[in-house]
Every structure is written in structure tokens, then in C-alpha cells.
């Protein structure tokens, strides 16, 4: 049966495969829009309890910025903290309460530090000494 239909199938290249739920991943570190980093908005960071997590992927569907990722070969839930705004929707939709919201100041790093918001070249001189 498989052999019979083989001539009708196409091998899709890795970069052309449709991701889970057709969600386009959020940009990587300082990727497409380095001036639109929304990690600085976050007041509470989502933290996953991997023992409780059942990999239902509800959080991936719920995230408005597509910052929830599958890491470790699809075995764990991770976050793109450069763009996570800390809205808390992943915590809200989680059926097993595996995602906590921890105050951001409890962590040392994880937020991209920006010198200014939307600093244009002709404005830079106004800040100079």
C-alpha cells in the first residue's frame, strides 16, 4: 500500500514544515525586532513544574506572543523570556496548575536590558552630557 502511493508523496524540507498548531515561533534573541523586546514589561515570570506538566500544550495555544516553546526535543515546556510579557494566560489555562507566577525581581537575569525605548539617532544627542 505504501509503495503504491509513494510516487504521490513529497519530502517536505525541514524549514518548510508546518509547526504545531501553525504557530510561528517568536523571534530569537535580538532577532527580527530588537527594539520591540517586550520582556521588560514582565512583572511575574512563568515557571513550569516539570513533574506536574502533562505536555497537553494548552499553554502553547494560549500564548499571545508565541513565547511558549517545546525544548529538550519536545519533552519539556520552555519560554522565550525576551518576549514573554508575563500576562499569565499560560498559568490560567494550565489544567494541572503546573505553571507558577514568580516575581521577576527574585531572579538575577532573564530580562534583556535596554538602554532606551525606540531611541532614534537624531534623538541620541539630546541625552548627551
Amino acid at each position, binding site marked *: 500500500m505504501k509503495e503504491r502511493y509513494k510516487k504521490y508523496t513529497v519530502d517536505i524540507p525541514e524549514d518548510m514544515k508546518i509547526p504545531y498548531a501553525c504557530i510561528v515561533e517568536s523571534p530569537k534573541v535580538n532577532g527580527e525586532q530588537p527594539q520591540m*523586546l517586550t*520582556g*521588560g*514589561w*514582565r*512583572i511575574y515570570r512563568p515557571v513550569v513544574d516539570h513533574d506536574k506538566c502533562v505536555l497537553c500544550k494548552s499553554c502553547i495555544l494560549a500564548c499571545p506572543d508565541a513565547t511558549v516553546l517545546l525544548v529538550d526535543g519536545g519533552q519539556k515546556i520552555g519560554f522565550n523570556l525576551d518576549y514573554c*510579557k*508575563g*500576562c499569565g494566560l499560560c498559568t490560567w489555562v494550565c489544567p494541572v496548575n503546573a505553571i507558577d507566577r514568580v*516575581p*521577576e*525581581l527574585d531572579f538575577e537575569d532573564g*530580562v*534583556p*536590558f*535596554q*538602554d*532606551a*525605548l*525606540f531611541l532614534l539617532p537624531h*534623538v541620541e544627542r*539630546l*541625552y548627551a552630557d
Partner: protein
Amino acid sequence: MAKTIEVTVWATGVVQDKEGRDVCLVLTEAANQEGKFTQAFDNYVDLPDRINVQVRKYARISDTEIENKFEYENHRPNIIGVTEATIMKGINVCKGLQEGGFLVINTTKDPEALLKYVPEKERKKLKAVATIDAIGIAPEQLIDYSGAEGAEDVSAIGAGLGSVMAGAIAAVSGIVKKESILAAAANRTAAKRGYDEVKIKVLK
């Protein structure tokens, strides 16, 4: 030449939008009563208001008429107020700070704990850093969009943490007197507690 004191207040969008503006309004109202020239305005430059985005509110206090009245951004502030300490982790709030500036933060932590988020260049210019637990004294009052984006402000100026922050800024920098702050703020108890309970660390 008389110096214009510029105040920049960082707040989180929508949630503390009115509170950030109240800090500027209470300070300028208090300075007005002392006969100074004042100006308080929002940031119109870079961002529309969205929940938890970093927004800026500005105030100017001067002995003489303000010359740069129509320049709607404080590029070289003297005093920085931060109504949510987590903002400092993601952005350089002290950008363009003038020599001998002040930094007042709303947090339960000590002033030393938050100095690490200020870059070295700006840290050298700071005269003092202060913290005040403003949310513990008077939480945010904004439930609706009252007073935001040109709408009529039905709640009083300085009902929430704005008056606490304004009291703390007055105590640290001394730009306005305590009596004027108490007269300008709607929540007099909160402004008084902000003036008295602020934790100051003098750096130089």
C-alpha cells in the same frame, strides 16, 4: 540663569497610568502653591498605552518661566521616580540623568538591592537613591479609564500611590515643602507617610 528641575516618572501602562500622572500632578500643584512655574505632561513620543508597558510621565518645576515648554520629553531629568521596581530590570530608567540626580523607587526592598540595575555611568551621577513601599501604604486606585487619554478625571488627584511617591520625592530632593505636598494631595495621610517613611541612601 534659573534652573528648571525636570522630573520623569516611570510607571506601568494602564494599571499605574493615573498613578504615574498623579505623582507629577501633585508635585507641580504643590510647587504652584509656592509660586513657581510648573508643567506636567504625559509621554507622547514612543508608545501607545498598553497594559504593563513602560510609560513615562513628566513634570517641570522652575523659578522663572519654562523656556522649553513645547518640548514634550525630559531628555535630561534631575529626578527619576519609578512606581514599579521591576521596570528597572528591563530598561535604563536613569538615561540622561543630570549630575546630582535623585532616584525614588516604589518597592519593599532596600535602596542597595536595586542599584545594580542602574548602569555605572548613571550611578556615578546619582546623589541619593530612595525606596518607599507605596503600594503597602496606598494601592493603585485606577479601576476604569477615568482621567486617562483626555477623559474627565472624576477621581481626585493623588488618591492612591501617587501621593505617596510625591511625598517621598519631596522628602528626598526638597524641591517642594511638606506643607505644599499635603495641601495638594487628596490622600493627605498617604502623602505624609510617604514623606516620613522613605528610606534614603545618600551616595555622595
